[in-house]
């Protein structure tokens, strides 16, 4: 309850004013670009541009700090895992080996591995600002229409937005259920032993699932009564037409992607190799 999840901030900035569809396209193209390239130069440019966009949007740190912390934890775990499972991935990729330190067994720290993991880190850092920005600056009401405009079926687009609509209600249900359970002695706090906590968690999840299923039934009946899912097409109350700024943003990201692909694959490899 205390930890605030990420949500639309409803501020006014050039980024907020872009339509949801444009932001969705920019975010998608941006992410694909960052996924594909391992070119350090490209990633650095993406990161810099991402940070500038963040600055322009004027979103406040406290609006996303919790989610950012979650992502960073995951980010660290990922890095540890990469090293544990393939400590010589960098050596394989770059074709050279410069040992720095021997830890134990097959775990050597090499310059190539460090550089490879630096690139992975940069990929994260290039995508995170854009992902956060997309969520923070897109009006959830516009989200479904944006998905629909980029070609996702309106049924799926609507389900996504309905799910978002009921998240706060389900959180409230969860809180009530947890309180009721605690009062009867189902403790899921750290005071209990892990096995018991898991067992007690089931006692909370069952009513939560049942109430959620009931809610879904009501909601889908209500939607059907209002003619949902019958026609081949659907219009959107909150959709906005693309404006010059949106087209400019999309054009910019497409050019950026093209440039980065050219720079990345110019030498025939996804990887920028300083060791060659």
């Amino acid at each position, binding site marked *: 309850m205390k930890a605030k999840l990420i949500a639309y901030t409803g501020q006014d900035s050039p980024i907020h004013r872009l339509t949801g569809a444009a932001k969705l396209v920019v975010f998608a193209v941006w992410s694909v670009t960052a996924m594909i390239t391992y070119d350090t130069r490209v990633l650095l440019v993406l990161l810099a541009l991402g940070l500038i966009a963040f600055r322009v949007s004027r979103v406040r740190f406290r609006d996303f700090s919790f989610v950012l912390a979650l992502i960073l934890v995951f980010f660290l775990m990922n890095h540890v895992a990469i090293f544990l499972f393939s400590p010589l991935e960098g050596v394989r990729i770059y074709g050279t080996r410069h040992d720095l330190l021997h830890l134990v067994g097959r775990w050597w720290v090499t310059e190539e591995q460090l550089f490879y993991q630096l690139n992975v880190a940069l990929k994260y850092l290039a995508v995170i600002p854009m992902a956060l920005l997309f969520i923070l600056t897109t009006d959830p009401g516009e989200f479904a229409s944006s998905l629909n405009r980029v070609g996702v079926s309106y049924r799926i687009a609507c389900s996504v937005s309905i799910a978002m609509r009921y998240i706060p209600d389900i959180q409230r249900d969860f809180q009530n*259920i947890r309180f009721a359970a605690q009062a009867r*002695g189902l403790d899921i706090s750290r005071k209990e032993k892990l096995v018991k906590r898991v067992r007690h968690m089931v006692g909370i999840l069952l009513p939560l699932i049942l109430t959620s299923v*009931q809610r879904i039934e009501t909601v889908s009946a209500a939607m059907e*009564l209002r003619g949902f899912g019958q026609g081949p097409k659907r219009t959107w109350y909150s959709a906005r037409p693309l404006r010059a700024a949106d087209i400019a943003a999309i054009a910019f990201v497409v050019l950026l992607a093209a440039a980065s692909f050219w720079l990345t694959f110019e030498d025939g490899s996804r990887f920028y190799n300083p060791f060659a």
Partner: protein
Amino acid sequence: MNERMDETAPHAGGIGLAAPPAAAGRAAGARADNGPPVIELDGFGFQYRSQQEPTLHDITLTIAAGEKVLIVGPSGSGKSTLAHCLNGLAPHVHSGEMTGRARVCGRELAGLGILELSRLIGTVLQDSDGQFVGMTVGEDIAFELENRAVPQTEMRERVERAARAVGMEAHLGASPQTLSGGQKQRVSMAGVLVSDTPVLLFDEPLASLDPEAGRQAVERIDAIHRETGKTIVIVEHRLEEVLHRPVDRIVVFADGRIVADLPPAELLSSPLLAETGLREPLYVTALRHAGCAISPELHPESLERLELASIREPLRDWHEAAPSDPPPPRRSPVLELEDVQFAYDDEGPAVLSGLSLQLGEGELLAVAGHNGAGKSTLARLICGFYRPTSGRILHRGRDLAGDTIKERSERIGFVMQNPNHMLSKTLLYDEVALGLRLRGVPEDEARERVLETLRICGLHPFRSWPVSALSYGQKKRVTIASILVLDPDILLLDEPTAGQDYRHYNEMMEFVLQLKERGKSILVITHDMHLMMEYAERTVVIGDGRVLADAPPATILTDAELVRRASLRETSLQRLAERAGIGAPAEFVGRFIRRDREGRGR
């Protein structure tokens, strides 16, 4: 036409939706027998696929264009099933089979899909939270238009108009979480008005509203009826509240059949309501207690039109003769809140700012207040889910601050409003035994205590049943049993009678009363004014985070200012007393309650 609408609807502020031709030339509030029929049922029946027996038998009912019809009946009487058949949820969502003849707007019901029906009959569901599918008010109102691929410019215009019709035009960008129950329902109404169907169906519109929001809903439905001339069908068991505005006819359901189809005045003059287990308006009951014969000429359908000439005397005589309520006994406090303050976070606004109250030994105390006044927070503080920012909570004089939630739950049992939030086992027995097992009570002893509790709660015959097979009222009882088994001396009940009809309300409260007689001290959080009047010794009204009043229910409910601040309503008894010229309305209300309790064998 427009001029006339303005005359007949002084306060509705111009709904501005086109009236169908059927409404033209018809006087507001008058019966519209001569309109063409929009709903015709002849020997109609319905059986759900999951049921052994039909739910509706041999229904013959005609509703004419422009009529306003109220359908009443106890839970399980089939009135909701009829509503589902009319809007297509049955058989298209809840499958089953229709028999007999049914036509809607001249077309065979059996040939109509849910989409076609949605263009003829607009439904406002009971659960306005579940019906609110948009991220904002504007989007939700637009939902049906979106589905019909109406162009955006036209859609915005129509949404704006519908929002104005229900007074929500200033909130088009608001999210559902920031709206009250009454506001959400208004959005649902706009979402139906926007597609301009000839028939509007309201399925238990009052079920989840407080008394004041309920009054506004009834007035709004009436304004829509008068301004648009649409056919209105209201399915509801709260007769008195709906009759706050006139209806043309009342159809009474019982056991899947129509047992009456009468104008309100005739229905109220007959004994039919009592026979079907429905509650008649309190002022009508008061007239009966005073020995007045009720006939249609008295106009019992409306307290304002009620013909008083012949009944003023007997009413006054009865009032003089009735004994006044003895003052409530003095009770030693079992639970005390001393100057409790609370805010959810340090910067946030105070939810409770210096609240003090006492619950006496063996007392039944009602706590009322508008939504957001801090009633639920109060219960959560007592249970220890939250900690007060300052102030003390004492149990028999001992400060509870050091006790955990679990320790408190052995003295104070909290029963939530929604039983589904509390039920976590598949079998009834296990559900009730859960609290004991978690406390490591030996199985033999646990078994004895569970069975004893089930006996007290009238659930013993169901002890081996799965919880899912029980009715809503029974589930509610199971949640009380699962708390009672821990033998707390205090019970906190949050809206114990919400969503239940008169018979179930009575059963529930008689059960609560038995618990009180067994020595439990009970604090009930409620909007239900009947509950307050009939069962509580004392009512505490909370507002702005503190106690606004602490007095017998009759005193509270006859104080206009308090009634307004707690989002309650003045009772019709008070208005009756005023109209009959009885000087002390609170005294009259008190005497009536006493008489009514005795009348029911207590």
